[in-house]
């Protein structure tokens, strides 16, 4: 227990302070955990390794968790990994259960974070060895599996799938990125727009355009009707929260946390896939899948435990292979090298104190996140009582900051916000569906790279079926998910005809 000497009051203060700042970053639409870590990275130089990591890990846990606040209350995902949180959290808030939804989300986040932390602590090297069994082929199949959720999320199967593929298509605009293994050539860029579009559209501005600006345009179109009053939020009345909502959800929580952790472990699959996969699994295995998307607590639980499950998972490849599991942990490498510490397969063995201190920091961060958010919910929930004519301009301004700073100061990202705000507004009127669209957009680039690279490396289409037992298992899951979607959509139609 030598590491206990590293746990100083400063260490604890940094974890808690980091978590607090992280929550704020996560809660502001457009600001992400990655941004929070990037901003504070230079500070760690003077703090020393353990204290620096304490701050950064607090920011990481806080940032991932804070995203649920605007997702639930405003329907705008604060970070890409809280997209699926909006599906059920926002409908709950709309019917006046915002506070309850937040409490469910926070508790699930805590469960997800803690489960993944255990996985990290006890199985990191084993999990890393398993992760390197995943070649391009298996990674493509994981993405394909995540893409099947497009079908499950569609209200109208045909339009939903079309929207999803449109999302993939639009994500391909720009260069075939060299740093992902592409050849750096442009495609799908209309002549004359190369100056702006050579790197394509960035995810975050697209996301907040579709969910933030589009929603405000919708409201403007309707003449900005009055918002909920303080009574509507039902603070302490009506549908109160109690931990009994989690009854019967243990399997859901553990499965979702496990999925989140596992996606985190796979380098290059991307953090947003975690909550998407967790959500689609929860829906598939639910007895009442038709309630998903209408304010179903189980969906909220899956999404939030999934994205917090990512936190521990993403540290596995970082600390046991020296390879980051997502964009935030990529920055943590910087914190190590700033201090002259190598991360790689020998890290845990060579630096047991640092390793223990990190785990401890994560644990404190999860507890701090839970405690702080639980207390603050009351005030968060009041956001919906702010008059819309005050709230909307400020949201718009925050979206601009988020879009502009996400890539460290690129004005085109701000215009992207407007383009996709308008697109989102028109798309809904055309019957296109935003949820599958954004999922296609997020997963499109990875789907491309792994699909093309699989064929480039193995030169045979059958490789997708014959590569390994993992591939076979993934196919079972993909087919199962598709069958479930078709079955669900039939069942839903039957339910609708019966009720009408």
């Amino acid at each position, binding site marked *: 227990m030598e590491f206990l000497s590293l746990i100083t009051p400063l260490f604890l203060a940094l974890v808690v302070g980091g978590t607090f700042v992280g929550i704020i970053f996560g809660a502001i639409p457009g600001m992400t955990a990655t941004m929070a870590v990037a901003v504070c990275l230079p500070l760690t130089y003077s703090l020393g390794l353990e204290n620096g990591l304490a701050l950064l890990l607090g920011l990481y846990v806080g940032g991932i968790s804070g995203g649920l606040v605007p997702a639930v209350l405003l329907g705008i995902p604060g970070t890409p990994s809280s997209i699926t949180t909006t599906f059920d959290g926002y409908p709950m808030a709309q019917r006046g259960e915002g506070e309850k939804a937040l409490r469910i989300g926070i508790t699930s986040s805590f469960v997800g974070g803690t489960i993944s932390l255990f996985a990290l602590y006890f199985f990191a090297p084993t999990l890393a060895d398993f992760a390197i069994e995943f070649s391009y082929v298996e990674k493509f199949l994981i993405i394909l599996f995540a893409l099947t959720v497009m079908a499950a999320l569609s209200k109208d199967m045909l339009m939903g799938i079309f929207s999803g*593929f449109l999302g993939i298509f639009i994500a391909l605009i720009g*260069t075939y990125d060299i740093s992902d293994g592409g050849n750096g050539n442009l495609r799908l860029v209309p002549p004359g727009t190369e100056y702006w579009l050579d790197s394509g559209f960035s995810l975050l501005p697209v996301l907040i355009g579709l969910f933030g600006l589009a929603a405000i345009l919708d409201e403007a*179109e309707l003449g900005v009707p009055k918002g909920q009053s303080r009574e509507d939020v039902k603070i302490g009345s009506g549908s109160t929260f109690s931990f009994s909502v989690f009854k019967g959800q243990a399997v859901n929580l553990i499965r979702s946390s496990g999925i989140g952790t596992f996606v985190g472990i796979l380098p290059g699959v991307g953090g947003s896939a975690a909550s998407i996969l967790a959500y689609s699994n929860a829906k598939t295995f639910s007895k009442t899948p038709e309630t998903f998307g209408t304010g179903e607590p189980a969906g909220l639980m899956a999404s939030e435990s999934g994205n917090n499950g990512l936190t521990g998972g993403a540290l596995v490849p970082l600390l046991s292979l020296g390879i980051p599991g997502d964009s935030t942990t990529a920055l943590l490498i910087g914190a190590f090298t700033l201090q002259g510490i190598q991360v790689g397969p020998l890290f845990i063995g060579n630096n047991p104190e640092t390793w223990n201190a990190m785990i401890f920091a994560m644990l404190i961060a999860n507890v701090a996140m839970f405690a702080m958010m639980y207390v603050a919910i009351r005030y968060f929930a009041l956001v919906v009582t702010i008059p819309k004519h005050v709230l*909307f301009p400020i949201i718009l301004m925050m979206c601009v900051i988020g879009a502009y700073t996400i890539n460290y100061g690129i004005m085109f990202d701000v215009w992207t916000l*407007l383009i996709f705000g308008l697109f989102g507004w028109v798309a809904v009127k055309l019957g296109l569906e935003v949820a599958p669209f954004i999922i296609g957009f997020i997963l499109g680039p990875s789907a491309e790279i792994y699909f093309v690279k699989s064929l480039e490396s193995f030169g045979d*289409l059958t490789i997708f079926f014959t590569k390994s037992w993992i591939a076979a298992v993934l196919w079972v899951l993909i087919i199962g998910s598709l069958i479930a979607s078709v079955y669900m959509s039939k069942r839903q139609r039957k339910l609708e005809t019966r009720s009408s």
Partner: protein
Amino acid sequence: MDSLTQVTIDFDRSHLIFPTLIGSILVLLSLAIIAKRRHKLAEAGAYWGQITGHMDKPRFFGTLALTVLYFSLMVPVGDIWPNTGLGFLICSIPYVFATGVLFMHERTLKQMLVMLVISVFAPALVWWLFTEIFFLTLP
């Protein structure tokens, strides 16, 4: 038989494979949608007429116009004091105020004053926080 499934990828042209594949799927799906929905398509004109008819035009187009103006001015204004984020601050104040007033229903003097105070303080606070404390680049 083996040759049927074999593919050789030319790396220099590999950037076109996936766009072609997804593009073809999109074309097929749109054909299916057109076939299924041709009746609805015929009514498209009336549908959009209804939407624009019911729309709160001043608020909707006002928001768009203000936003375009806001985005266009931010960089030129910011260029006067490079790398200070003042372009953002100076443009945000009138934008927040104007949009707030546009969305307001009862435009009393008191409400306007409240909005004015908010539109000065909110951007200033945000600007201070992000440029001075977090050291981020704003226009």
